[in-house]
């Protein structure tokens, strides 16, 4: 399945680095590139996947990290979402030191290329996590996710993240197939202000309206949902979003 998806969305194959304008030393690189020489080291294959070895070492091959760990699956998340997050890490709006270190000073086009690469990966989802949640909390979680809580102006997750909760193009992430710990940490980070998006930060607004037990119910319910084979992010949302989200701006 993953291979078929790749075949549908081939990435541009680039054998060598394109040489950008304005670099003073272009002549130097080309002379080196043209003289591989007997002493040249053996060269490993030049693929984007290999360039991104740092990403897949933690997020799994193709970005398929399973809910067994803490790290989020990035495979198949909408490219706009992944791109925005990479920029947030680089600019320090999300406080995840290892991610800031990784993307520090990387140019936007490369971040976009990474985002598109992982967005185009669709390895199968593993079985969902076994979550300890009593029946009442589970039902509370389901209601909050699918209906929200009008009394506290909390919209349903599905209003923005899609009825299938697998996100919406171009920049809203799916919420399924993620570890509950990760989901808890994100909602907590929004409440505490260590995860930020461009204002107005809709998720920070929503997270601050949720009680801790609500968060546990929501994340527990989400983490225990199976993902149907072949499921993808929605191409669009059926209705206007209930809140304005600055983080979705291009």
């Amino acid at each position: 399945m993953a291979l078929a998806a790749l075949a549908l969305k081939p990435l541009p194959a680039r054998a060598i680095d394109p040489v950008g304008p304005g670099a003073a030393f272009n002549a130097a690189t080309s002379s080196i590139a043209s003289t591989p020489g007997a002493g040249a080291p053996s060269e490993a294959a030049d693929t984007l996947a290999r360039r991104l070895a740092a990403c897949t070492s933690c997020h799994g091959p193709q970005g398929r990290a399973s809910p067994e760990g803490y790290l989020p699956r990035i495979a198949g998340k909408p490219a706009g979402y992944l791109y925005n997050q990479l920029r947030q890490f680089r600019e320090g709006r999300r406080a995840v030191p290892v991610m800031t270190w990784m993307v520090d000073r990387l140019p936007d086009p490369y971040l976009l290329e990474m985002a598109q690469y992982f967005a185009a990966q669709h390895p199968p989802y593993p079985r969902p996590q076994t979550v300890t949640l009593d029946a009442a909390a589970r039902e509370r979680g389901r209601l909050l996710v699918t209906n929200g809580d009008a009394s506290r102006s909390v919209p349903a997750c599905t209003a923005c993240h899609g009825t299938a909760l697998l996100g919406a193009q171009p920049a809203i992430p799916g919420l399924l197939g993620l570890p509950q710990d990760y989901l808890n940490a994100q909602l907590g980070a929004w409440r505490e202000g260590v995860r930020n998006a461009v204002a107005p930060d809709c998720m920070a607004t929503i997270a601050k309206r949720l009680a801790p037990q609500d968060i546990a119910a929501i994340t527990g319910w989400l983490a225990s949902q199976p993902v149907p084979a072949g499921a993808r992010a929605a191409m669009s949302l059926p209705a206007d979003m209930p809140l304005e989200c600055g983080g979705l701006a291009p």
Partner: protein
Amino acid sequence: MSRGARRVGIAALALMVISAITVMVVMRPWSTGSSSDLRALPGQAAGQAPIASAASNAPNALLARGAYLARAGNCAGCHTARGGEPYAGGRPIVTPFGTVYTSNLTPDPETGLGAWTPDDFWRAMHEGRSRDGRALTPAFPYTEFTRMTRADADAIHAWLRSLSPVRAPNRPNALRFPWNQPLLTELWRLVYFRPTAFVPDDARDAAFNRGAYLVEVLGHCGACHTARDSLGGAEGVPLAGAELAELGWYAPSLLGNREAAVGQWTQDETLEWLATGINRHAIAAGPMAAVVTGSLQYLERSDLQSMAVYLQAIALPDSGGPRVQGLGRKIVLPSAGDPMLAGGERLYAKHCAECHGDKGELAAPGYPPLAGNRLFAMNSPVNAIRAVLHGGFAPATAAKPRPFSMPPFGPQLDDREIAAIVTWLRNTWGQRGTRVEARQVNALRSVPAD
């Protein structure tokens, strides 16, 4: 008594003797000691308007020159906070004496340099004094910039004045006592600083001298690559390498070919490295990667050539030993039977060989293989440890905008395992280097990744 402690003692004595003289000489009304309290003075409106109009009349060639020089000096590297407006300051600079927050260089009249005249700016660069006469913290490398030409300082100033003003109040420095005392800064300057000028070496050609100016003055390479004594003054041979303990990096020697000297590189290889941070021998990492991406990649080819000429001229002949400098120190090399070597070799085969090759021979196109890599020949293993611990991307530049990356192994391997791998890499494929201890790895786990 160690040399450092002796220096502290001498300095304390000197402080008592000279302080009175200093006050008389300098005649400054010292306030509470915060280095920013005076910066927060309201802008002196009377001086602003004529300066602003002068800036708007600055010829384009002067502004272009100033922009270029600001790149060469990498002003933005320190004077821009992560995610912040360029040149608006606020970036924390961690020093052994506390944290310095860089200042706002935009022409905002109240919080930036809006009220500064060219003479004010020149005094900051050349004498290390702020507009109000206060001694600036030497974290601002006026020890190097003092030799900048007046014309270059004026061009940078004119260009900074052409930026959009950003209102960003300077954040007070968080220096520890006694480093937060202005008097100590005055004393420090008496010991370590004299305003001086760049004097070209008439025995050398123009390229050498231009290179010397770029490396020693504008590029202020010595700010990292020259060792510091316990008081933060330059110590020993300039550019001979220095531990950047607060950052968890080692700035390798620009003199030793086993470290970062370019004596055995072709000029093309040197230019490629300066402009991209990547060639077949070495990859820039950490603070040096920031210098490449923020500054060196923008330099004119002729300037890079001059830097290469100078750097090749200062490279020392290879000593052949495991160390170029630090010869007085005891060097403990692992014995052939050291179990750490066998352990490191085994771990390498398991975790590293798939990408780097059984004999360290594999590399991405144009990247250095591990075999013979100077990363493992340096006096300090710090950069090699960090490469394994934190991985990361090679520098991204206009010429190489899609760099390869190395996975971080910190989450997978414990301190002893990483110490063994690096020890083995420092002692295989013709290399010979000191053992790495697990505690050295552990200390680097917690350094700021930023």
